[in-house]
């Protein structure tokens, strides 16, 4: 091939890769633009404090916001201690035993299970077997199982990044293993763990399919008062409005999306802030 043709191919290829890359960014731009254009007119205090309604002008996301809030509380009350506990066990006690390798593979497999399968698990176990019904606690525990692998994997990463000298120094002073873990390793790994936790909350809060399977109701006229009350959630409300044929409800769901994405964006910024802060304090 002549040099000129090779250079031409090179140029075309470079332009093609750049074009493709920037077009996925353009897609994000279109997505954000569409949502803001449609949804901004709805987002105000009344939208946040109104109950769902058949009339679009009166409809709001009050119950959905509280539903999501209680769901996240239940999810984290379950997933945080178990996830972090499992990660500590695997990193500090597991070693290279067959059991810990088995758990390792198992966690990786669980991370790849489609979320809807967790929904089926929640339906069979929490809703029917345990008799919790279509309630906040069923939804919360289902989401908890869903984010458990994420928490375990990120926490292990955070623990592994703790310099070996820190636990060694503590051991040298005669600390017991549990003292080393809880007073030295964990505090040092905390920012990394928090980042993972926040990211997993932001994943759980957008999950829709498992909640539909577990039986989140589309129309709930009250804020859940106990863990056994029925519930709705922000993504469920968005799904419900989008699947109605009337255009006005589509733009209403754009309003819901703005709220959902703002919550997620806030959490992600906090996570990034944590990451930066610890990187700086450790380097400096």
């Amino acid at each position, binding site marked *: 091939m002549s040099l000129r043709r090779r*250079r031409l*191919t*090179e140029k075309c*290829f*470079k332009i093609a890769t*750049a074009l*493709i*890359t920037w077009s*996925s960014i353009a897609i*994000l731009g*279109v*997505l954000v633009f569409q*949502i803001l254009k449609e949804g901004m007119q709805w987002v105000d205090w009344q939208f946040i404090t109104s109950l769902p309604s058949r009339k679009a002008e009166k409809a709001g996301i009050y119950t959905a916001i509280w539903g999501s809030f209680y769901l996240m509380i239940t999810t984290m009350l379950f997933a945080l201690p*178990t996830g972090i*506990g*499992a990660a*500590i*066990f695997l990193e*500090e*006690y597991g070693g290279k*035993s*067959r*059991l*810990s390798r*088995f*758990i390792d593979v*198992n966690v*990786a*497999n*669980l991370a*790849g*299970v*489609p979320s*809807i*399968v967790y*929904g*089926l698990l929640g*339906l*069979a176990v929490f809703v029917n077997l345990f008799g919790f019904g279509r309630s906040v606690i069923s939804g919360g525990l289902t989401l908890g199982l869903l984010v*458990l*692998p994420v928490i375990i994997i990120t926490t292990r990463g955070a623990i592994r990044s703790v310099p070996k000298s820190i636990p060694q120094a503590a051991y040298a002073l005669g600390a*017991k*293993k549990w003292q080393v*873990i809880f007073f030295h390793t964990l505090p040092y790994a905390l920012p990394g763990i928090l980042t993972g936790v926040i990211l997993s909350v932001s994943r759980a*809060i*957008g999950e*829709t*399919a498992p909640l*539909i*399977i577990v*039986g989140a109701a589309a129309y709930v006229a009250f804020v859940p008062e106990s863990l056994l009350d029925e519930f709705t959630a922000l*993504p469920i409300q*968005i*799904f419900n409005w*989008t*699947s109605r044929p009337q255009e006005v409800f589509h733009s209403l769901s*754009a309003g819901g999306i703005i709220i*959902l*994405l703002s919550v*997620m964006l806030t959490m992600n910024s906090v996570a990034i802030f944590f990451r930066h802060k610890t990187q700086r304090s450790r380097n400096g």
Partner: protein
Amino acid sequence: MFHFLKLIMRSLLKRSNLFKANSIKKDWFDSFVKGSLGLCALISIITTFSIIFILGKETLLFFEQVPIGDFLFGTKWEPLLEPQSFGVLPLISGTFLIVIGSSLVAIPAGLLTSIYLGEYAGPRTKAIVKPILEILAGIPTVVYGYFALTVITPMLKMIFPSIEVFNALSGSIVVGIMILPMISSLCDDAMSSLPRSLKEGGYAMGATSFEVVWSILVPTALPRIVAAFILAISRAIGETMAVVMAAGATPKMTMNFLESIQTMTSYIVQVSLGDTPAGGVEYQTCFAVGAVLFVMTLVMNIIGRKFYKRFNLEIE
């Protein structure tokens, strides 16, 4: 199960300090901490076993009423209408249509994006593009469903006037957008983990970037790139909300992207949106379909991860 308990006991015994010199002052609290942490770790195993047990149990109950051959090879899926028929192939074909469509979007685009990031983009461009791809990956699927319905489908309608309101094409495109960040980041890892000398050797011979990428980097990293594709496809199979909202709920065997179809995941959602009592045959179909879904994604994930790891070892 018994074998498993034995395993746990043995590893606990081996690691307890019963047999060590300082065992006179054995700290009971230390063992307590260890035991409770171990319990936490066990929950992940219990989860896996319960998934397998529950899917298996309901599927077996389902097969008592519907012959397994009718389920796996039947070409008509009408469980909610009389007379009922339970052939899962239309749902599988719907899922495959979405997988093919989304792969056609995401595989070339994802690979090219990773090449752009690895070879051409400067550090400042990278600092902009990478977080944006992460944002794309983090957007909830219900938002993508909204996007498909209100933006992509109307745009497609301008190109193909005969397209249905719910159609496989719109669903495929949006699922493609969703799995693109995953493909590009895995491919990026695959190529940037190659030894620098490979690339430098190519440049020293006077090759252009295009030639280095296509005849050195991509072929060498191919097993890991393929693994990335497999993992992404497995995600596309399990993808739910975007498909429910964009591709419709018409189980049929078609290769026409302009028609409404139904995937395995969207069938499960369709049943759940109605009021199905526990124990009925409609309830069990969900678990049977879920079992097919679970086995498919599990096999692909295991193959994908094996590929990814083995090759990693070879290079090192």
